[in-house]
């Protein structure tokens, strides 16, 4: 790509904002009422962490969500308007494997884990589960286009960052470090997309 410095993010935007949000509308309609299940399970997993300091159920849930979103959203929907979506789906599948591996290899919770400070991660999780779906209302988008944890990539990525922050210190090895990459990358890519669509 010659003269790469002359390109702006908007030059790579393939679709209109209307088309993009319509994706979520069709996605939500297709999978309704799965939204209740994903949010409910997310809340249950957070409650389980609160009581036991075990983040394993949350990681397993997130692994399933990343795999599902990679298939149901990126491959089945986003690929219709974005030729890069199959590659993104591959990244989501890889992330699912990383989270699963992290869940399997995490040691059981111990008393010192109970004392570990959560530093806002639980609050972020609550926000992605309960508040994020309503964020679109502030921008004039109807609730049918809501981005819901477990079905939409953005809130799921944010919830994953929060969950990774809850992983106890002894488990913070290579797999844990690698598991940060995809959610952070997705947040950046999504942010650029949203900014270019403004």
């Amino acid at each position: 790509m010659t003269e790469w410095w002359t390109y702006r993010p908007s030059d790579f935007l393939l679709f209109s904002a209307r088309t993009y949000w319509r994706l979520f509308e069709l996605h939500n309609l297709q999978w309704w009422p799965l939204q209740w299940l994903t949010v409910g399970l997310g809340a249950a997993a957070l409650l389980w962490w609160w009581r036991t300091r075990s983040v394993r159920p949350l990681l397993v849930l997130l692994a399933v969500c990343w795999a599902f979103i990679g298939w149901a959203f990126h491959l089945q929907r986003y690929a219709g308007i974005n030729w890069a979506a199959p590659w993104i789906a591959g990244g989501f599948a890889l992330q699912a494997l990383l989270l699963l591996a992290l869940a399997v290899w995490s040691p059981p919770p111990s008393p010192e884990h109970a004392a570990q400070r959560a530093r806002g991660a639980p609050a972020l999780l609550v926000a992605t589960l309960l508040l994020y779906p309503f964020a679109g209302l502030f921008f004039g988008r109807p609730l049918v286009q809501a981005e819901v944890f477990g079905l939409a990539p953005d809130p799921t990525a944010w919830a994953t960052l929060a969950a990774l922050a809850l992983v106890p210190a002894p488990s913070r090895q290579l797999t844990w470090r690698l598991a940060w990459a995809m959610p952070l990358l997705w947040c950046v890519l999504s942010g650029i997309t949203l900014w270019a669509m403004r």
Partner: protein
Amino acid sequence: MRSHRPSRPCAARREVLRLLGAAPLAAALPAVGAASAPVLARAIPSSGEALPLVGLGSWITFNVGPDPQALAACTEVMRAFFAAGGRMIDSSPMYGSSQATIGHGLKQLRDAPVFSADKVWVSSGARGAAQVEASRRLWGVARWDLLQVHNLLAWEEHLPLLLRMKAAGQLRYVGITTSEGRRHADIERIMRTQPIDFVQVSYNLLDREVEQRILPLAAERRIAVIANRPFREGALLDALRRHALPGWAAEIGCDGWAQAALKFIASHPAVTCAIPATTRVDHVLQNMGAARGRMPDAGLRERMARDVRRLVG
């Protein structure tokens, strides 16, 4: 510039009347006086074939995926476009599902007088032919009117391919494209050395660099010119929207800034067709209205550009 006269006027009128039969379109037609004025066209230099001054782009607007509601809306835009006298639709494999959207619309409209303009866009020269065929299937056309090397990607390999395809009768015209002022030196070099029929560049009331060298060269080399980004993807119209039209707009029969912008572009003697993109039937009719009536002369064109530059800063 001359009025568009189809080689088979009776068949063309029957076609327009058939397209006008769609109930939703009838209500969207502009006033009778404006609609009855002939669509102005310019000859493609290499063949003399007349092409209406305003076509239809598909970047972003037609990339709607398999959404039935959006596909139907795009089909209505195409219906209105053809009924208003439009012919050239431009697309590319880079534009997501736009090609499939066009193919969907052409299938619904049946025998639309489309001038198909698409592109080859792949870094491997060996995969060019397969991509072109895949694009043709998406459009559902038997033969391409125009194929272009998109943004000069691997043009050294794709241009010979397209020229071979033209010699074999698989397409009628060959071209190259760029946008936003990029690679103009390469564009000029190819225009001087290769037997291309079309060049597509960005040209509008603010982006006028091509007037210096590329447009004169196109006229000299008898290469047709397609103008993309006539509205800077809407940014130009957004900036002008709050300003009243200057007095010269009435002189050339413009009902809005979109028509003023298109008349500026289409009135350059070297430009063959401008390709605004839209998702709205009323906008496509306004755009096609720019291909009717009086066009600005050179003096008015300069006033238009000066006034717009002053308004948008």
